[in-house]
């Protein structure tokens, strides 16, 4: 499942009710919002996306990962809009027969997501804000 949503991501809503009997590894990765970045105190984040393209790119990444690492399951959920501290902006769920493939897949997906998926993060501080990813504010 690929999803870009304005709603809060609650892991509970995405837990596997049934674990695949051919899986030996099930991994839930949550990217959560820290209260600090590059020495600055972060109050909250806002994510913006070019949704149509982001979905298309996530779909490409997902198909590649499932095929390369023979995953039994792959879900990628990204939140957009305002995300408060300690809330989840990204949830990736992977399962595979052996753990090695789950780890390789999830690291590839996050790396690739941060390279090619059109989603932008703006950090809000006590004294202003900054778009992340530009040359002034490397991610």
């Amino acid at each position: 499942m690929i999803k870009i949503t304005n709603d809060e991501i609650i892991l509970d809503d995405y837990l596997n009710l049934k674990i695949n009997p051919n899986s030996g590894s099930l991994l839930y990765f949550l990217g959560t919002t820290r209260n600090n970045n590059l020495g600055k105190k972060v109050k909250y984040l806002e994510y913006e996306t070019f949704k149509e393209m982001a979905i298309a790119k996530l779909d490409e990444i997902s198909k590649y990962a499932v095929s390369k690492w023979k995953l039994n399951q792959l879900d990628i959920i990204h939140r957009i809009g305002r995300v408060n501290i300690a809330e989840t902006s990204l949830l990736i769920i992977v399962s595979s027969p052996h753990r090695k493939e789950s780890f390789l897949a999830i690291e590839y997906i996050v790396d690739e997501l941060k390279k090619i998926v059109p989603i932008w993060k703006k950090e809000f501080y006590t004294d202003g804000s900054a778009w992340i990813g530009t040359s002034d504010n490397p991610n």
Partner: protein
Amino acid sequence: MNVIVKFFGQHKEELNKSEIEIELKDSVTLDNLIQILKNKEPKFAKFDSYAIAVNLNYENLNYTIEDGDEIAIIPPVSGG
């Protein structure tokens, strides 16, 4: 022909617009389009790092724009 160019994130904020419509001659490349944008939107000239997508796919500067293409200027992404 006319094309729509979309802006996002910092670009959208600084230009204060999410898209503009531009009239183009035939056989115009993305490289040409960038020059046109720089003339049309002086602020655009100072943006130093972005990719360009046509119809949801990244394309090189030598891509020749076709009628009906949807062009998006993609600032450095920072999802995750």
